[in-house]
């Protein structure tokens, strides 16, 4: 028997539309980035990428990502644990608060940080009198990056931990397991794939974040310029090839992230099938 809507023409139309749109909107721009980056030959690409300021931007971006991930990992796990394993007044509110960074435009987030921690801000003024500068320096970039990415790990973990329930942990406690042993031997193995997935998403966003970072960074070349900001700077300097070379690097990181995600899903799938 034929399913409803499953005729030859419907199928061809839908598949063509899907493939066409995907190519036009997803694949073509990606190819264009690499085409532009290599437009003036491989040597130009290499010299653009190994440019002093580009290398500094790559370095800063990686450092920010490397600092953001552990902070969000710990924060996300603790938050997910709190929300799914305990019931307390304000639990729902907290669950909603987690989503604030998703709901707020990154530019607004950057502005809020600037207003609070900038030299003329409430906290920033006091910090300034103690010779501590957060805005227009790497700590500011780190702060907004953490803000923008903080829901990722918790959002991955909460539904999973809710579905798994706390029975296994209760069983472990009746068998005498204590705090960290309990987490390491029972909780962590059950959430590790979701946790890794959250980390990958955090990393992708931390590397690629533009809006919030651009507000607080000041884009000082070689000092507070991250890779996405660097792309824009180069483009405004009419250095199209240079801009696309840096963009290609970002795209490569994104592709690597996608590959890692696919690998994780492929690894996690058979376990879920039999559990």
């Amino acid at each position, binding site marked *: 028997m034929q399913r409803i809507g499953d005729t030859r023409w419907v199928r061809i139309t839908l598949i063509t539309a899907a493939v066409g749109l995907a190519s036009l909107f997803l694949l073509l721009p990606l190819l264009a980035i690499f085409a532009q980056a290599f437009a003036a030959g491989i040597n130009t690409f290499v010299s653009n990428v190994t440019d002093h300021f580009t290398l500094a931007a790559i370095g800063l971006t990686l450092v920010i990502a490397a600092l953001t991930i552990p902070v969000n990992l710990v924060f996300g796990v603790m938050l997910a644990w709190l929300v799914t394993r305990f019931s307390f007044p304000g639990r729902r509110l907290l669950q909603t608060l987690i989503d604030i960074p998703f709901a707020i435009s990154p530019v607004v987030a950057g502005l809020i940080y600037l207003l609070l921690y900038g030299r003329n801000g409430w906290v920033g003024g006091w910090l300034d009198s103690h010779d501590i500068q957060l805005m227009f320096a790497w700590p500011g970039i780190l702060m907004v990056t953490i803000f923008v990415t903080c829901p990722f790990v918790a959002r991955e973990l909460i539904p999973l931990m809710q579905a798994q329930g706390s029975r296994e942990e209760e069983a472990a406690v*009746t068998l005498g397991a204590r705090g960290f042993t309990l987490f390491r031997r029972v909780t962590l193995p059950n959430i590790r794939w979701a946790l890794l997935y959250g980390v990958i998403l955090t990393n992708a966003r931390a590397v690629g974040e533009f809006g919030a970072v651009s507000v607080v960074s000041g884009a000082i070349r070689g000092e507070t310029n991250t890779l996405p900001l660097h792309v824009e700077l180069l483009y405004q300097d009419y250095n199209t090839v240079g801009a696309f070379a840096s963009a290609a690097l970002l795209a490569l990181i994104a592709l690597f992230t996608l590959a890692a995600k696919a690998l994780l899903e492929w690894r996690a799938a058979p376990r879920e099938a039999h559990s």
Partner: protein
Amino acid sequence: MSIRLEHIEKHFGRSQALSPTDLDIANGELIGLLGPSGSGKTTLLRIIAGLETPDANPRTRILFGERDVTRVHVRDRRIGFVFQHYALFRHMSVFDNVAFGLTVLPRRERPSSGEIRTRVLRLLEMVQLSHLANRYPAQLSGGQQQRVSLARALALKPEVLLLDEPFGALDAKVRQELRRWLRHLHDELGFTSVFVTHDQEEALELSDRVVVMSNGRIEQIDTPEALYRSPANRFVFEFLGDVNLLEGEVRDGVLTCGDAQLKADLPEGRQELLLRPHEIELATTPDESSHLPATVTAVVPVGAEVRVELSADWMNEPWLASVRHEQASQLTLARGSRVYARALTWHHYPAPSASVQPSLAASY
């Protein structure tokens, strides 16, 4: 180890899960907590385990033997706990599941890995699962998983074993088998066990004493025989088996309801009588003490007896009668047959309120 509970009370938010409860369990006893869902039996069990905290009250005490564990954390109470849905560690092999309790002991108490191995293998042998030591929980049947979870709970040689609806998720045959096996294990190892169930048959078959609960209260504590013979109140009576209800007006020692009549020496007025299916006899004619006409709506042979479903205008709910096979064939019972039910005996509880003292169960 004996268990003594004093003044245990529990609220979840504004709703009361357990009204102040006392309970004494002797060393080596096997106790069944029996009740419908929402009766507070699981809450009580989890409070004994320490997985739930009773409401704060200076009179609240939980004693394991001489040891006051009221404020002792679960992990230090040294109990074995078996969960309804096994709660096995899904990422660990059967062997590692059973070994878990031993491997998380503080270093100075922890046995050597060789000794852990021997002990785990002995436990697996005891639950007849040695051949599955390297399997993962998801690869086992429900009955096997529950046996692993029992072995895991027993690994630390607890003196108290607590089981939350341990056989609830299993099919009838496996359940029967595991019940017998648990009873055997209990007698052999001599721990004190408390298990929760909503299945009266399971409670009556397995327990030394049954604690019947409803609405967060203990209704009766007794041995299975005593419980079945003399239920303390109507709730217990109804919960322990099938019940037929006859409700009518009593005048001059005769209860009347529509065209049904039964001699009953009860006070005048509206009264309710309860009858078990085996307390009803079927006949083709009424006798001088009862006139209970009914129509047979179903005849189901179950094992040693035949269950007959009856309906009539004067019944609120269909009645069930269990009769012997010979009698059933003698009466040539079939759907639609007209019969007269005769009450061999009946029970009467004065008020629907369960807290009232029981009256004698009358019989004649």
